[in-house]
């Protein structure tokens, strides 16, 4: 059975995000082979109603963004779609910099972000995992955030390339500064 079909069946059955690491283990495949299968699945789905959301660590099956108005018609409860100014900039930082620690988020924003991070965690827009160094947590985006943005991956975000470039330029500048002042 081709891997892309196995994965599609699993995602459908579970109807929840699945960790790429788990899939590699379950199917005993390399990251590269998994990626090939995911790309195949993603392309095959394009002709239908479903899409594959992919973050750095997880994947999930969802409906296509074009179907949103039709699904909303049959949903009873209205969901809150406001993320607020602080929430938006915190999400942006995590989107472009994940995995990132709270201390780093705080430093970029210039304020303590515990409250807003907790809020985003509760809403399932970000998730935390134990830091590799074992000191505190790092934060990353969830498939649920991408689903709310209507994109299958961060690369599909409007302006993703522009922002990434701007940030890269910033990193280059900063390195130059560090070198001259060092």
């Amino acid at each position, binding site marked *: 059975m081709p891997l892309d079909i196995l994965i599609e069946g699993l995602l459908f059955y579970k*109807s*929840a995000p699945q960790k790429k690491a788990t899939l590699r283990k379950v199917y005993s495949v390399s990251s590269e082979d998994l990626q090939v299968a995911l790309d195949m699945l993603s392309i095959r789905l394009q002709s239908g109603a479903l*899409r594959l*959301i992919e973050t750095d660590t997880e994947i*999930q*099956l*969802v*409906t*296509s*963004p*074009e*179907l*949103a108005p039709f*699904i*909303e018609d049959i949903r009873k409860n209205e*969901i809150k*779609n*406001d*993320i607020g*100014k*602080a929430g*938006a*900039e*915190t*999400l*942006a*930082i995590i*989107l*472009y910099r994940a995995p990132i620690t709270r201390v780093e988020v705080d*430093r*970029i*924003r*210039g*304020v*303590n972000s*515990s409250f807003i991070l*907790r809020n985003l965690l509760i809403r399932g827009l970000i998730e935390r995992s134990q830091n590799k160094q074992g000191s505190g947590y790092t934060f990353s985006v969830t498939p*649920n955030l*991408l*689903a*709310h*943005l*209507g*994109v*299958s991956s961060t690369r599909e*975000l*409007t*302006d993703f390339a522009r*922002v990434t470039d*701007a*940030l890269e330029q*910033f990193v280059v*500048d*900063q390195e130059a*500064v560090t070198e001259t*002042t060092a």
Partner: protein
Amino acid sequence: MSVVSHHSPLAFSFKTNVFEGPLELLIELVEKRKLLINDISLAEVTDEYIRQVSEMQEKSLPHTAQFVQLAATLLLIKSKSLLPVLELTKEEEATIEDLEERLKQYQIYRDAGMILTAQFGRQIMYAPRFIAPKDAVFVPDDYCTLNAMRAAMNSVLQNLPRKEVKPKVQVKQTISLEEMMLSLRKRIEGQLKTTFSQMRSEAPEHKTIIVGFLAILELVKQGNVLVTQLGRFDDIEIELEQGSTPRYY
């Protein structure tokens, strides 16, 4: 001038115009003037930044400490731009450079956040609804014992977020704007070998001190002090006469 008053007087506008962080306030001041981020623009917005922080302090708004810290850096930038003789330590120079970089970086993320806000929730990609199993098979595991449940509950209680630090305590920790300005004034006095005693306000209310300090900086800018100081070693008096001719260096 105030964060509140130049917007709508409605109660909710107070909430929406409160700045959560110092970078957010600073970037708004720079952008309001359509300036690029550099030491010149930062020096230019210093007065207004300090005025706003001073108001926050009066209202005992939370998190003012973070704003004051940044005010110190801004004052250094402004003082240096007006008094090139003011010697900054390596550390201070690094702090100033760092502030510019941080502000530029913050601007990028804030803009990206605006894009996310515009896109968020517009075309949601829906995961399937969860259908609860009607007759779930009972599958307990090792966690399903009273002891394990107690241990898990203790862990939950331990991880509850601590109560927010009460504003009272925070005020104590805050280095006030006045203290900060006084210490910077001392430094400038030291370097200029003079005193600002004539400028000292009779009422030591912090607002007056702040205004006074900014006024001194402006006076210094006019050149009198600087020129004389460069020429002689004696104590120098600041010309306070309204009609004194400014001499630009």
